[in-house]
């Protein structure tokens, strides 16, 4: 039988999703279901004088109005689970319902439970909250200046943490360097915008004490754990089900007050409760991404060798520290300061700031896009300064393949890769030299074309659990799987991760079907229900296949090893004399003596004739804890045309060469690249979450937040190189975030390259026509 590994077969998720037969959380219906709606602060910062719930409680259909007083000692605080060490991290309490003070627009002060969605929503308006508004602070740099509004008594100066990273001697490198370039970069706040809003449904059986919580979750086991901690409910009495999930991009990792409150309401009211946010609510309460103000610099020799990088980063955390928030701008960011290069000296300081805004947490790439962006922008500035082509500067500084595995200045070790091969391939595909010539000509005609290169590597496949402990991550980072073979030879495999668009129901079935030599139709992958799936840590950090896939592979191998022993027994042969061929164990040299996988499944499950000491049944579980992260990499190159009159940017071509090791399903890998790149193009060209100075989210609906549309986006030319990692048995690296990481600087570099003749060296993203136009006007004015 042909192997399925490497084959772009159609996805097994799709038949239900294309027919409207998927089950998303808001689709769940239960007998006697009630509906919750949250009363949220319209102020970014205010003390609460009084909450009057009387009118709401009397409203038709209202079952309960719950305030912070009602839940005191029963719910929360909402936990942060990434306690980054050695940075003086301050984690002030995050009440599930505010009682004294609200700290961002959207902070919840009460919950209504009613017999219908509409009744709950109506009653929200009847809760009378008397606020005393306070001055607000929204910018991560300004928030830590003296005299600014203070969010938390426990956090003087709003400084959540000050984190340092260093390797080599950056100060000395800068002191001795011939060339230094520096930039102030704003990495704007983004709205993750999973198309499915968050939702939770809870039901509680008072007699058994069993809570069932359906939730839009990328990591149901983490949600089970957090729910247990927050509600004080024993973990084994909680079942979290994450059914079909409509995208997450990081925003469905955290534990939110909403889910905990819904669970609490179900427990106390004895009714099942559903809550689903609408999009405006999603934009104000579901975590945001990025939000950095950065001062960054690079130094090097006059002939193109980069010798040092220094940063000072102001990272906004929003009003409270969300579940993984402290780890994002620190561990997942600063450790990558060498990028894809041999930069020997790096030094960085990251100052986390509480601001009167929605909490910020992981968003596709989480820390690594920010690192790659600042490095890749600096490389271009440095190249410009020394008059060398930016692609050649990259070639000169990329880590050579023969140095792999390579330990960078920050102390982490890149597993594998041929970075030059990806760069060369991308340059050839886009005809780099030819474009430079055309650009030259076009410039003479007053036409501004640009080409931008970005060579990235990123840390993913999170990660060894021992490292998780060292970096303060409040959980493990292994994965697990159970492979269960039924008497008829059909297989169900239970996994600890929760794919939500990435296609592992298909790719994981490919792994199992290959291992057993059975048709893929005989294999079912089960995810998302903590009742049946083994402990896992979730789908994020491009870890599902690299870690979870490896666990599954190992479980399947264990099953097969047992099947082999049984086959040897039944064939009265030596195990060593058996070989696996076309779905059977057969005796070497006499293929007629054979036991097919299906037959072994039956014999193991009926257990009529087992070898001495062998347990009945045919199943195995495996836990896989990797020895290192994995480091996918690549080079993206874009060409753009900038209209000098309007500031409009048109992407002419987008070529990317990514390396995530071998592909289990090439069609799915390419789909991940497409989606990731377009999210990055959105970040580079149009997406920005804007707060007014008094803390109102000005981009609070899809009318104002520019999610990329089909008509605005380029076609991507996606290519690959294939370098397996030694870190896991499949050789695979993550690809979920790489596209976003590679694309953002690539687009910005191309636009700045186009405008180089005007003396423009940097424009902060998003490069909207207004911003580009303003930069052009300023440059023209300056030149005059």
């Amino acid at each position, binding site marked *: 039988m042909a192997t399925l590994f490497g084959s772009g077969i159609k996805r097994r998720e799709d038949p239900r999703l294309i027919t409207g037969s998927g089950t998303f959380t808001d689709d769940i219906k239960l007998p006697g279901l009630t509906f919750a709606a949250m009363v949220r602060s319209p102020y970014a910062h205010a003390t609460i004088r009084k909450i009057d719930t009387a009118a709401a409680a009397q409203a038709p259909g209202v079952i309960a109005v719950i305030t912070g007083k009602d839940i005191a000692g029963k719910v929360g605080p909402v936990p942060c689970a990434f306690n980054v060490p050695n940075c003086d991290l301050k984690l002030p309490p995050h009440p599930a319902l505010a009682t004294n003070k609200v700290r961002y627009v959207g902070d919840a002060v009460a919950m209504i439970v009613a017999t219908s969605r509409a009744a709950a929503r109506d009653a929200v308006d009847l809760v009378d909250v008397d606020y005393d508004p306070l001055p607000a602070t929204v910018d991560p740099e300004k928030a830590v200046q003296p005299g600014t509004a203070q969010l938390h008594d426990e956090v003087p100066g709003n400084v959540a943490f000050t984190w340092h990273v260093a390797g080599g001697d950056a100060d000395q490198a800068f002191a001795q360097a011939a060339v230094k370039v520096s930039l102030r970069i704003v990495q704007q706040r983004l709205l993750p915008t999973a198309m499915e809003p968050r939702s939770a449904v809870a039901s509680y059986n008072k007699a058994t004490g069993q809570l069932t919580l359906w939730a839009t979750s990328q990591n149901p086991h983490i949600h089970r754990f957090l729910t247990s901690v927050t509600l004080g409910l024993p973990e084994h009495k909680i079942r979290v089900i994450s059914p079909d999930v409509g995208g997450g991009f990081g925003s469905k990792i955290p534990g939110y007050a909403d889910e905990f409150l819904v669970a609490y309401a179900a427990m106390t009211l004895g009714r099942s409760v559903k809550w689903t946010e609408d999009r*405006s609510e999603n934009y104000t309460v579901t975590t945001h991404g990025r939000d950095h103000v950065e001062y960054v610099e690079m130094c090097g020799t006059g002939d193109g060798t980069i010798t040092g990088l220094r940063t000072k980063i102001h990272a906004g955390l929003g009003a409270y520290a969300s579940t993984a928030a402290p780890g994002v701008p620190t561990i997942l960011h600063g450790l990558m300061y060498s990028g894809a290069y041999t930069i020997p000296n790096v030094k960085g300081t990251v100052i986390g700031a509480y601001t009167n805004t929605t909490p910020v947490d992981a968003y596709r790439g989480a820390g690594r896009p920010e690192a790659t962006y600042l490095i890749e922008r600096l490389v271009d500035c440095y190249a410009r300064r020394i008059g060398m082509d930016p692609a050649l500067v990259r070639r000169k500084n990329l880590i050579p393949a023969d140095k792999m595995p390579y330990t960078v200045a920050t102390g982490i070790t890149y597993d594998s890769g041929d970075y030059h091969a990806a760069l060369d391939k991308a340059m050839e595909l886009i005809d780099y030299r030819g474009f430079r010539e055309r650009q030259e000509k076009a410039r003479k005609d007053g036409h501004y074309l640009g080409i931008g290169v970005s060579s990235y590597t990123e840390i993913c496949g999170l990660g060894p659990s021992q490292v998780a402990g060292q970096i303060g991550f409040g959980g493990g980072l292994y994965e697990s799987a159970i492979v269960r073979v039924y008497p008829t030879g059909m297989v169900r495999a239970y996994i600890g991760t929760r794919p939500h*668009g990435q296609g592992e129901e298909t790719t994981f079935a490919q792994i199992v079907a290959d291992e057993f030599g059975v048709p893929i139709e005989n294999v079912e992958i089960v995810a998302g229900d903590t009742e049946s799936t083994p402990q896992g840590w979730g789908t994020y950090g491009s870890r599902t296949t690299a870690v979870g896939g490896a666990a599954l592979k190992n479980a399947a191998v264990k099953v097969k090893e047992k099947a082999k022993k049984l086959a040897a027994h039944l064939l009265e042969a030596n195990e060593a004399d058996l070989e696996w061929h076309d779905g059977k164990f057969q005796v070497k040299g006499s293929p007629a003596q054979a036991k097919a996988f299906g037959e072994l499944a039956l014999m193991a499950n009926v257990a009529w004739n087992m070898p001495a000491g062998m347990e009945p049944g045919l199943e195995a579980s495996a836990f896989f804890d990797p020895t290192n992260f994995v480091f996918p990499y690549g080079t993206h190159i874009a060409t753009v045309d900038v209209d000098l009159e309007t500031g409009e940017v048109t992407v002419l071509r987008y070529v990317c060469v990514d390396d995530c090791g071998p592909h289990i399903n090439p069609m799915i890998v390419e789909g991940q690249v497409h*989606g990731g790149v377009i999210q990055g193009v959105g970040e580079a060209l149009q997406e920005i979450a804007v707060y007014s100075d008094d803390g109102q989210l000005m981009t609070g609906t899809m009318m104002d937040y520019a999610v990329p549309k089909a008509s605005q986006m380029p076609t991507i030319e996606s290519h690959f190189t294939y370098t397996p990692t030694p870190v896991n048995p499949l050789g695979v690296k993550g690809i979920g975030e790489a596209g976003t990481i590679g694309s953002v600087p690539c687009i910005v570099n191309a636009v700045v390259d186009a405008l180089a003749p005007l003396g423009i060296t940097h424009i902060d993203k998003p490069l909207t026509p207004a911003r580009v136009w303003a930069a052009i006007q300023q440059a023209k004015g300056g030149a005059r």
Partner: protein
Amino acid sequence: MKRSIALSVNGVSHSVEVEPRALLAQVLRDDLNLTGTHIGCDTSQCGACTIHLNGRATKSCTVLAVQAEGAEITTIEGLAKNGALHPLQNAFWEKHGLQCGFCTPGMIMSAADLLASNGSPSDEQIRHAIEGNLCRCTGYQNIVAAIKSAASA
């Protein structure tokens, strides 16, 4: 306060008691249990709720259920005929035109409207036609490919 309305959905007649302010999208989902129609926004931007109302693609979150009184409605659940997938459903499957699948029902319903009026759209026409349908996962490329391939099927 509730009013009774008659709807024909996917060829089946229904009489439903609805609040005058209830949106068609909510009634389809909550009252008729046709949860394939999704709700992704509150400003009529995302298109996840797209259905066919009297044969034309319509965002069902922009229509009050009472306005649909007497209308012929097709939802994603009604697109496959006699157990055979609609060519667009096949094409989305074939071309990997979906990832999380949340936008997909609306996307397919919009695309069906396009193909009804334009049998061989260009990439640009396709991208323009699905402008009112947001997808955060796919980057649109394989959606365009799927619609194109359905057109030539």
